[in-house]
């Protein structure tokens, strides 16, 4: 196994852990975005450019954006109460 793949695998393990440990959802969004980026790089190293493109578009852009919008909607509802 090449060192690059091993390093990215370990980095993925770490960034997944960070997503779980970021208990404040607003901070978690950034961890999630980072996790998506790391996964995308890992997929690139695993010779899967199609999957990497998909993961980077979805994992680093769309999903975190949906999370942010959700948190904003929740904050608005809390402000009303």
């Amino acid at each position, binding site marked *: 196994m090449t060192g690059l793949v091993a390093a990215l695998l370990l980095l993925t393990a770490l960034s*997944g*852990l960070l*997503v779980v440990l970021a208990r404040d959802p607003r901070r978690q969004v950034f961890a999630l975005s980072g996790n998506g980026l790391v996964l995308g790089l890992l997929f690139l190293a695993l010779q899967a450019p199609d999957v990497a493109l998909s993961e980077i578009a979805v994992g680093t852009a769309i999903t975190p954006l949906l999370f942010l919008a959700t948190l904003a909607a929740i904050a608005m509802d809390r402000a009303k109460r």
Partner: protein
Amino acid sequence: MSALSLLDALPWLVAVWLFAVGLYGIATSRHCVHLVGCLTVCQSATYVLLLGIGYVRGAGPPVFYDHPPGTPAVDPVVQALVLTDIVVGAAVSALLLALAIQVQKRRGTLDPQALRPLRPPPSSLE
């Protein structure tokens, strides 16, 4: 077991680790949105596993644009499986987030420890 075989098993162990960590997060989460984030971690475990299964040492991507057909390439099947699943996974996360927004509007809380269907919240007990 030798250190070498453990290194060969690294992707599988990382996949298990991601699933276990995500499960731990779901079990202990105190915020529904955080819980959805943990669920995506569990899902990424399956991607790592599948792409690891298809990886061939020293081979290129299964796209024969720059290399002619016949050059060693990794398994395209697992990549196709993962590719579609990523898109669907995002849509399911969106569904869960929409549920979370509505739960917040109806209940005013997003603590999974307080969400129990058919059991009225303590305040409204007769």
